[in-house]
């Protein structure tokens, strides 16, 4: 069955976008005179670009994982997953725009290592300059994004081709490509999070940071996937998806929440225990300026999914999943917010009209793109070799 964007959905996304534009305009008007306005504006752009790109990228990773492990259960929700990965090219465009703006403004106090004046007086950054400089940063960024885009295009093309041709040739090709993508992703998810996020706190470093960021995007994309699936199921699409599929994706949301919490705790505990000045500064600054957000989001992202998604019934109930999903997503947005704002604005950061507006604006654009992606292909694949297994999926 083909998906059609209803009038209600159109109005919903348009409202989000209009509210977003309105709030952003008010925010710009009231804060345009501030000293840190450019930093604040670009930091917000970076937060939202990274957050929503992460959802698309997490779905791409998850799809590649299914290909590489040749699983059968996911086939019924494959097109929903692909609709999420369809955000990848748009996400790349937004990210590149933000990076261009940041490069032009010499980092805008976000990437301080881009500012030659700061680097001249900072011996620690000077020692990192062979890695953290504009030229190499762009080479790496283009390689990451280029490879993500290339694989996304291939997966999408072959998926549509499979609908027409059938057979197992495409399946085995996806298997190989998925495995190779995972190798790239394993390295790039770590290094890109160092380049794009960890370099904001340029003096600080954590070997766990890549995993921590990766767990965050994985959890966000699983949450969006389960919310989108139950929504479409409720609308009467996806007749092949049964409770067991939803239960399984619900479990992924639950499990990745734990993965994220585990890594949050591991990073925090090791640094707290070792108590070394150059490491604890990251947390000291966040506890001083973002205490509520920093510990609040840990509770939101750990305790809520743990207690509310623990039972079997909750993982199958559309209402519970949607409510928890929205809470988890907000929690992970706060995570990215604290990661970026902490290092760039520190004490001067605050959540106001600008932050809410830009989040609403990007959320509206994101949902619009996802819904539009859903219309581009039939919602059920027809020739996947494991389709029958997926229809009879039972746990």
């Amino acid at each position: 069955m083909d998906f059609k964007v209803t009038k209600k959905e159109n109005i919903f996304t348009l409202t989000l976008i209009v509210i977003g534009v309105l709030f952003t305009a008010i925010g710009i008007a009231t804060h345009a005179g501030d000293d840190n306005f450019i930093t604040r504006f670009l930091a917000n752009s970076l937060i939202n670009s990274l957050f929503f790109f992460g959802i698309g990228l997490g779905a791409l990773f998850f799809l590649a994982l299914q290909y590489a492990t040749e699983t059968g259960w996911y086939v019924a929700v494959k097109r929903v997953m692909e609709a999420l990965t369809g955000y990848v090219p748009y996400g790349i465009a937004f990210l590149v725009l933000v990076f261009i703006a940041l490069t032009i403004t010499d980092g805008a106090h976000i990437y301080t290592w881009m500012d030659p004046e700061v680097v001249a007086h900072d011996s620690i950054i000077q020692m990192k300059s062979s890695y953290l400089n504009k030229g190499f940063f762009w080479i790496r960024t283009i390689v990451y994004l280029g490879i993500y885009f290339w694989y996304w295009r291939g997966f999408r093309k072959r998926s549509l081709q499979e609908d027409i041709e059938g057979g197992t040739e495409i399946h085995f090709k996806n298997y190989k490509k998925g495995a190779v993508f995972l190798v790239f992703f394993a390295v790039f998810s770590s290094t890109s999070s160092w380049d794009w996020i960890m370099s904001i706190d340029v003096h600080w470093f954590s070997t766990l940071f890549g995993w921590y960021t990766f767990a965050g995007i994985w959890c966000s994309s699983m949450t969006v996937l389960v919310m989108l699936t139950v929504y479409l199921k409720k609308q009467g699409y996806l007749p092949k998806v049964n409770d067991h599929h939803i239960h399984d994706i619900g479990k992924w949301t639950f499990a990745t929440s734990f993965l994220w919490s585990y890594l949050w705790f591991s990073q925090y505990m090791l640094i707290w225990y070792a108590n070394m000045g150059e490491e604890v500064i990251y947390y000291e600054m966040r506890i001083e300026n973002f205490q509520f957000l920093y510990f609040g989001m840990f509770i939101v992202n750990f305790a809520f999914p743990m207690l509310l998604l623990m039972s079997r019934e909750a993982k199958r109930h559309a209402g519970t999943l949607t409510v928890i999903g929205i809470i988890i997503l907000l929690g992970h947005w706060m995570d990215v917010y604290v990661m970026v704002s902490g290092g760039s604005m520190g004490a001067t950061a605050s959540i106001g009209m600008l932050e809410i507006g830009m989040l609403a604006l990007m959320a509206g654009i994101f949902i619009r793109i996802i819904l539009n992606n859903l219309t581009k292909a039939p919602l059920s694949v027809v020739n996947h070799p494991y389709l029958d297994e997926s229809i009879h999926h039972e746990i």
Partner: protein
Amino acid sequence: MADRVIYAMYDDDEILKDGAKKLVAKGVKVEEVFSPFPIHGIDPIIGVEQTRLGIFAFIYGLIGLTLATTGMWFMMIIDWPMNIGGKPSFSYMENMLSFVPISFEFTVLCAAHGMAITYLIANRTLPGMKAQNPDPRTTDDKFVMEFRTSQNKQFTADELEAMVKSTGIVELEQKDI
């Protein structure tokens, strides 16, 4: 009234499943199925209740968490105050982070062991317990379905036997208890 148990033996799990479906459709109550391995999809057919093992796991986990917390609090803070990681604050809350791994491990330990023991008790398969299955071959390659006349009062024993026999059994055994 005397209760009669009928044991119907099958040599294939699919035949047993089809037979159970047919009998349940006629209104027969299946008391139990004995099988060397879990038969996928048999639970909803013979109406096995959803397991409550998960709730027990949660309770055991909570017990473990409480035990670990009180234990560490008493040992490390009250009874013999320890300098933890060069931070001699002697407060449980301020050193919470270093207690988390042990709390977690102990929670998992209690939940896992509690669950395993509960499972063995519920199935009456603790070491030393008398075997429940009617025929040792159900641990090898045979499948047995058990009926009780006391649960199927709408049929006479002969009717029940005739119905069971029509489902492709390989052996039938009856016992008065």
